């Protein structure tokens, strides 16, 4: 693959698919990485047929940390220049993780450790490249610990903090690090939940995110209204906030 290639980590989700389609429309090739390579191959075929860009599926497991170095080598071998969209993560409910530490552990390992492991290995590649974009899917849940969802929120909060440091590091090499904080997205992750405010489709999310990439932003809420909502939620003193059950 020559020219710009987006590496999509966690490529099976509807959000990742929509983002891959947007960047391919804009002329980039795509590497779709994830565990379900059969499914990723279908998405890759779809992208190529619709946009004419090259797309390939790669096996990647966020928690198989000792495979990550080799994985990065493979990607480097396939693409001339990389941009990265990290889209993997799991969200079991708070009740489930309260009951089952195994699930809690899996979530921390996937959402946080998995991201740290792969981004640490990709960082030198991006530095050497001296340009490019690293886009990571955070969450508004990471902005404040809430009764209903605080373990998930804490994995994203940790990720946000990690990205602040990574941003400073890669800034020195001319690489953008963008933390995207989606509010409510209409995806498989939120399908079973009761009606949520301001849901955005994966397509709207993808276009908005790519616009933030082009503007060179550091942190962005999608849809934008969540910036305001979270400003309010963050400003509630803990003394009162602990009584709420949002």
């Amino acid at each position: 693959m020559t020219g710009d290639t987006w590496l999509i980590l966690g490529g099976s989700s509807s959000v990742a698919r929509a983002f891959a389609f947007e960047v391919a429309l804009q002329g980039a090739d795509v590497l779709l990485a994830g565990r379900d390579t059969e499914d990723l191959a279908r998405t890759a075929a779809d992208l190529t047929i619709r946009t004419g860009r090259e797309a390939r599926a790669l096996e990647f497991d966020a928690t198989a940390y000792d495979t990550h170095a080799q994985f990065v080598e493979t990607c480097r071998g396939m693409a001339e220049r990389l941009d990265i969209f990290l889209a993997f993560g799991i969200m079991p409910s708070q009740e489930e993780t309260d009951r089952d530490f195994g699930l809690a552990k899996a979530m921390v390992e996937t959402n946080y450790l998995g991201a740290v492991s792969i981004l640490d290995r990709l960082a030198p590649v991006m530095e050497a490249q001296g340009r490019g974009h690293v886009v990571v899917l955070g969450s508004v849940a990471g902005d404040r610990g809430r009764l209903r969802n605080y373990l998930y929120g804490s994995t994203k909060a940790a990720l946000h903090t990690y990205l602040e440091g990574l941003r400073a590091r890669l800034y020195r090499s001319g690489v953008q690090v963008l933390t995207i904080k989606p509010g409510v997205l209409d995806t498989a992750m939120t399908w079973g939940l009761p009606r949520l405010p301001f849901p955005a489709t994966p397509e709207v999310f993808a276009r908005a995110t790519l616009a933030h990439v082009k503007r060179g932003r550091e942190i962005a809420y999608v849809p934008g209204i969540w910036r305001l909502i979270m400003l309010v939620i963050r400003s509630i003193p803990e003394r009162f906030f602990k009584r709420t059950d949002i």
Partner: protein
Amino acid sequence: MIWKQLELTGWGRSSRAACRVARPERQRDAAAAVVQADERSVLAFGAGRSYADTGLNTGGAAVLTERLNRILAFDQTTGEIVVEPGVTFRDLLEVFLPRGFLVPVSPGTAYATIGGAVANDVHGKNHEAVGSFGHHVRWVELLLPSGDIVRASPEERPDLFAATIGGIGLTGILLAISFSMTRVPSNAVALREQRVRNLDAFLDALKNEGEKAHFSVGWIDALAGGRSLGRGILETAEPSNEEIAERRRKTHAVPMDCPGFLLNRWSVKAFNALYYRRFARRERRRRLAYGRFLYPLDALLDWNRLYGARGFHQFQCVVPFEAGALALRQLLDAVRAGRNASPLAVLKTLGAAGLGHLSFPMPGYTLAVDLPRKRGVEDLLAKLEAITLDHGGRIYLAKDSSLSAEGFARMYPKLEPFRAVLADIDPDGRMASDMARRLQIRDGS
């Protein structure tokens, strides 16, 4: 697989169904959904463009196919394509028309899915020339109620294939569909529109000109009576060799449910009269992009809301050519006598029968009318059913909301072989729909 409780509706919005709904994003999850539905019955649900209860399954489980919408393969030399069931006609128009390929058969809306096109064996304005959608299907990959995934084609498991084409989703959930796209010389048709003053003239025109043309469709004023009964506009079209500049098509949304009284017999009469005279001379010729020609109503999103919150029924039947003039006259008289305001009705001819056991098409005239849901509409629909039966005709399941089980069995002579396939692949009756229950499709009694 995550489920949620939702109410789904048919396009006519007179049929509604509360059910548990899953929306898989990959094939593995679709398979899991069928297994996990447990004792509940299951049905796939596409774009919700069939009119009544074909796609509904009250109290059961629905598997939405909207996110199984990838194009899996395309051969530029042969036009052979493989798609997931949630891919829409609109997707294919946007991707392939610029490359000189068109879906061989299109229903009246581009928002319908390919899965739905197979399940209803849809037909288009070129039925006499190319048959219905099923004629172009090379194979389907089907998730059976047992959870097994099998392939069916005219050669491989032909019985299952015939039950799946037009089988209104009762054989399982489609995971992939392979068919052939048609090469077209440009992005447009050369269209000829002519005013036709009554039914006899219309049938003559359909016979003389419609049969020769690649595309033909008639719009008739279902409220005109007397000597003008059956007056309307006949559209015939050929693929054009010349491209036309196509701006992005503007769509307008219907923002809310219109109050039902807006569509009354005076307003509809006025509308129909205007439509009949929408061009100044007797005849008009022009070139029109495929999107506008094939899917005229898509310019108005959610046009079903024009009929108000109560919704509407659509009636479509086909009657053999021999019975033609008399049957159509009786049908149109009944619609008029029912004082049920129906803007534009559609009249066209159908050619060869479909490949499916429950395929709708057969050689003859087909008439479609919208009937707002108000008092007396059930009686009117029953009368239309009786007239159709009298003349050896058949009612289209994708649109039907009121057919009786007895009428259905008389209209669809291949019901027994269809039942035999279901008994074989689905002995426990895992696949079901409100329509299947209403028409007693499964029970032999």
